[in-house]
């Protein structure tokens, strides 16, 4: 993987983060913290790994992306817009009546969305069914999932974790966006699910632990795990909530952000600076 490609993906991630801020600007508020923590992972998937076609969003052999933590949907909307699945102007409808990009994704409103997530603890079961069906159809397609660490206490996740391992779904790749924070505070204090990787391993999964805001690590880890056969894969991605906006980083108060004018201006300036810097 040449460094130029990594740089290009980093730039794309910054552009997507800028789109997240654009949506928040349009609506006045949104689940920003988690959208930004997983933005690098989502970027790597949409712009490097996934076999998808914005002109043919339902092609049967496509790879699937399931955002189990549906409240991080601005990350997915940003990637889909950047990828050309829908016109960018739709981003400015975030929070408005009948918007195609509601506060949790709706597959019937927006091309490229594969599941109606939002209620936590659903995505992994749906993804498991997809991976099982695709394997049966000999499609060779992969199913990528982004989960939040805060949703891990939902028991349904562990039902799916057992089933995915039982059926040897090596076409299922799960990222746990482990930003360590949730709405009530530190995830380890709210309900400690550490060690997350060991839990998945005990269920029969292949696992890896990475810096989930480091593009090179993300890319190399997916490449490596995609060569492994016979087990589903879980990547415990240590991330920073609010990543990319200095004052919001690692601060649970920005899980849901209702910015004032100064904050918004500062966020926009910071991201624009990164985009310009990397364009040079």
């Amino acid at each position, binding site marked *: 993987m040449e460094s130029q490609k990594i740089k290009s993906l980093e730039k794309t991630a910054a552009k997507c983060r800028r789109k997240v801020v654009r949506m928040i600007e349009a609506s006045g508020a949104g689940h920003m913290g988690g959208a930004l923590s997983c933005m690098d992972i989502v970027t790597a998937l949409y712009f490097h790994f996934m076999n998808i076609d914005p002109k043919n969003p339902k092609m049967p052999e496509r790879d699937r992306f399931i955002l189990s933590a549906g409240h991080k949907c601005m990350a997915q909307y940003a990637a889909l817009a950047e990828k050309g699945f829908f016109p960018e102007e739709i981003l400015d409808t975030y929070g408005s009546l009948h918007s195609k990009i509601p506060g949790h994704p709706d597959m019937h409103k927006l091309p490229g969305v594969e599941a109606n997530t939002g209620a936590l603890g659903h995505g992994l079961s749906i993804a498991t*069914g997809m991976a099982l069906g695709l394997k049966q159809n000999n499609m060779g397609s992969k199913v990528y999932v982004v989960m939040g660490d805060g949703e891990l206490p939902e028991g349904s996740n562990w039902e799916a974790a057992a089933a995915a391992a039982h059926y040897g779904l090596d076409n299922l790749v799960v990222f746990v966006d482990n930003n360590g924070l949730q709405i009530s505070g530190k995830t380890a204090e709210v309900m400690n699910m550490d060690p997350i990787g060991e839990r998945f391993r005990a269920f029969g999964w292949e696992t890896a632990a990475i810096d989930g805001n480091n593009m090179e690590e993300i890319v190399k880890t997916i490449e490596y795990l995609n060569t492994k056969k016979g087990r589903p894969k879980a990547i415990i991605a240590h991330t920073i909530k609010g990543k990319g906006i200095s004052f919001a980083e690692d601060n649970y108060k920005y899980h849901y952000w209702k910015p004032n004018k100064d904050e918004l201006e500062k966020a926009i300036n910071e991201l624009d600076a990164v985009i310009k810097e990397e364009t040079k």
Partner: protein
Amino acid sequence: MSKELRDPRKTFGSAVFEAAKTNEDIVVLSADSGGSSGFGEFKSTYPDRYFEFGIMEQGVVGVASGLATTGKIPVFCAIAPFVTSRPYEMFRNDIGYMRQNVKIVGRNGGISYSDLGATHHSLEDFAIIRMIPDVVILSPQDPSEIENAVKAMLDYNGPVYMRIGNQSIPELFESKPFEIGKGNLIRDGQDVAIISTGSLTANVLDAAKVLEDKGYNPMVIGMPTINPIDEELIEYAARKTGKIVTVEEHYIPGGLGSIVSEVCSKTFPVHIKMLGVPKTYATSGPYNEILEFYGLDAKGIVNSVVDFINK
């Protein structure tokens, strides 16, 4: 028609097996529940289309949704409360909201798991599942209707909930293609309309004979589709008889009785007597004795109808 009683679960499982012979997309999901759902032959004939998950109902409903996105037609059958109230949010979001072509079948519905008690009874499934938009709800009344309803369910592209019992039941009608959303006018009459669903229609037919002997002329309607309901037929019954009795193995509020009264209130309001189980944790014991206790045997239905007509 044969007088022989048939097990609704075996009838159901065999009907799915028959359909699966010509439709390779049909797959069966089991939460340690396939054997008792009549899927023995399906499992041995199509092992690669039979997925066992163990006791995992919430997960299985989500998995069914994901499988449906790949073109499969998943059929998931288990004890009714475990596929309705337990995974309700998965049913609502992953099947309903995502509008997936998944067939969820609650067996041992109503109080048919009689002696196993309230944990295994399902007396609210119509009420809660009909609150999920766009889910078809079927409640066939005799073995042939189960078979035909299974065919219709598998041909229909969208989410379906079907409820069957576990007590062996008699044939009531000539076998005919099942039309989703259509009720059957089994007997026309003018003194009262009795509208029922599921296997209790057998008791209603027995009751109707007694009522005839007593000199009454009851209309009898079977409603094997709970949602969408046959509004036209209900309105016909209301206009012609002015008095409706509903009979169901369900809580009195929320099910067929409520649906009929909703329809009448907007078309032709009439007095309605709802027979069912009061909203309580139902008692346990032999099935027929529980039905008798709640007045859902033929005699109980006759008594309620006569009282209602003469009120």
